[in-house]
């Protein structure tokens, strides 16, 4: 074949096309959400800015982490809807309740977290009171991002339960019918993450602790206890600290089973799971202590070592503290004196007559 300038140009064109295709195919699999090419800038770890308040804000996006988070499929513009051009103006805070570009498959409508807002507004954490007026200290009431971040997938493996995480064997079964690797991987992660909590009990307690262990907020709102502290004194709380996943956290008791965790109610509300008439049902449910009697639920989960909040338990504990000190201190005094005495076994203070 005679190499002409034309065929050379034609081949070069094909090669360039091929390279472009490979690059795009490669990037498509990695930057699944980055249609707007935001990572062009945001991939740099040092990307940051000091804002008007003098705070350093970091704008770095780690694509590996993002691609393993529950929002991996949502495009950047899906949440940052005010960003229309590059370079962009300072972006507004994300509103979690907007409709994003994901289709909700059962209704085929655009996906939104708006329902969470409905539950939250009818809960004890609502910013408004019953009559729709703003509550006192309304700024203390949580909104989405006070409790939520962008959680990572926590895939479950049931296959011979040898390893946690994604089960290669299960993926093999998916591949029989489904051909797109990215889909298989994401679907597996999505479904198995949703089969359990996306946070372990300790993380849940830490989320609630941001407000419910804050002495100022507890005092401002006349709450009976530093709730996560007192939970941490129970076996449940201690097991949570040792990363037990089976143990109940705040949400297991404070929300009725099967209902939205956003609809947390005051314990005075008869619909609340912690209302005195419902309390026994929390403990005695089939997954927890099914053989327990209703009396079991009179256990004070949130008792503190505090003479005002739990006087009987306070003095009961004080008795043991005094007993311990009263026993050990004199005995340790004797040991101390004995140690010194053995250095001077014959010494004696002679009394003057």
């Amino acid at each position, binding site marked *: 074949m005679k190499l002409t300038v034309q065929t050379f140009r034609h081949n070069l064109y094909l090669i360039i096309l091929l390279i472009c295709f490979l690059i795009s195919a490669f990037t498509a699999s990695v930057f699944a959400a980055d249609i707007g090419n935001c990572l062009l800038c945001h991939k740099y770890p040092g990307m940051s800015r000091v804002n008007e308040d003098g705070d350093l804000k970091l704008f770095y996006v780690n694509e590996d982490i993002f691609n393993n988070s529950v929002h991996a499929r949502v495009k950047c513009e899906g949440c940052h809807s005010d960003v229309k051009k590059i370079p962009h103006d300072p972006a507004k805070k994300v509103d979690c309740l907007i409709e994003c570009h994901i289709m909700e498959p059962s209704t085929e409508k655009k996906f939104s977290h708006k329902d969470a807002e409905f539950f939250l507004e009818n809960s004890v954490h609502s910013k408004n009171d019953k009559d729709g007026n703003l509550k006192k200290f309304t700024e203390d009431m949580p909104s989405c991002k006070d409790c939520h971040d962008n959680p990572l997938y926590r895939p479950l493996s049931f296959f011979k339960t040898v390893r946690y995480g994604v089960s290669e064997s299960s993926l093999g079964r998916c591949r029989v019918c489904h051909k797109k690797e990215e889909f298989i991987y994401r679907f597996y992660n999505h479904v198995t993450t949703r089969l359990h909590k996306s946070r372990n009990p300790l993380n849940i307690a830490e989320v609630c602790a941001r407000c419910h262990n804050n002495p100022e907020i507890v005092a401002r709102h006349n709450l009976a206890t530093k709730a996560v502290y007192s939970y941490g004194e129970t076996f449940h709380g201690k097991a949570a600290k040792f990363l037990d996943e089976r143990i109940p956290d705040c949400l297991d008791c404070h929300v009725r089973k099967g209902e939205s965790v956003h609809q947390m109610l005051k314990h005075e509300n008869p619909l609340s799971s912690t209302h005195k008439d419902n309390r026994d049902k929390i403990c005695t449910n089939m997954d927890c202590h099914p053989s327990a009697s209703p*009396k*079991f639920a009179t256990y004070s989960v949130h008792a503190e070592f505090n003479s005002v909040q739990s006087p009987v*338990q306070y003095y009961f*504990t004080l008795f043991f503290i005094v007993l311990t000190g009263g026993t050990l201190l004199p*005995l340790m005094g*004797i040991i101390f004196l004995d140690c010194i005495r053995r250095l001077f076994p*014959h010494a004696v203070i002679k009394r003057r007559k």
Partner: protein
Amino acid sequence: MNKTPAIKVKNGTRFFFRFTVNQRIQHFILALSVVTLVLTGMPLKFSDTSWAPYLYALFGGIHAAPVIHKVFGAILLALFVYHIVYLVYVIYKFQVLPMKSKEGLSIGKVLKLLANQPLVPNLKDAKDIGALMKYLLYLSTTRPDGAKYTWKEKFDYWAPFWGMVVIGLTGLIMWNKELATMIVPGEVINFSLIAHSDEALLAALFLFIWHWYNAHFSEAVFPMGTAFITGYLPEELMIEEHYEDYVEIMTQEGLEHEIRPPHGTHTAVSEEGGHA
């Protein structure tokens, strides 16, 4: 059954009989289960500390450690029940029955017998504590002469005895919480947890400080007392800790003329008085 000799001589040293094989096995089970219970229980009590997860992981973490704790708790409770039976049996067979055949029984006599058991605290213990304090504060030159069991040993016996009742009962309540709250209100579990863990801390500190000091780490015994293994106490320590008992046994064995003077201070002071 061969009677155990009250005095054994080995390498020219006299060893005095203290504990039967049965008692030594009881003590071994007690020690092993207490140490295991402390190691599997304290990480939970101090779950906020940095060391707790590591110690707990050594026993299998939150999934296995509570099981180990319950197994050894059950062993300890079984030992406690056995000990009570053993105590009643020994006192009945070797003291009450002979008394019955010799002089007949009455409630008063049995109570007196019980009150005179070597481990029951008595007036001498109070006097000994006073005398020890005087000695430790340099007001006298003699340690009190101990009987078969000194007040320290009685403390070692009765403190865990009371602890076993409190910790065992509350442990059983928390273990069988569903069953227990058929009868008692749920708040009893709160009190059980407080009593169980606080009493356990007291018991652990008591044993690991007081008991270990007296039995192993005191200058007289260091580095380790061996009577809990061999059942026999060397003459030196008998003189130091149990002089009254020492004199009694030596007399019983017909060795009056070989009784040595009480340790150090009595004679030493008269000899070294000029230097002091």
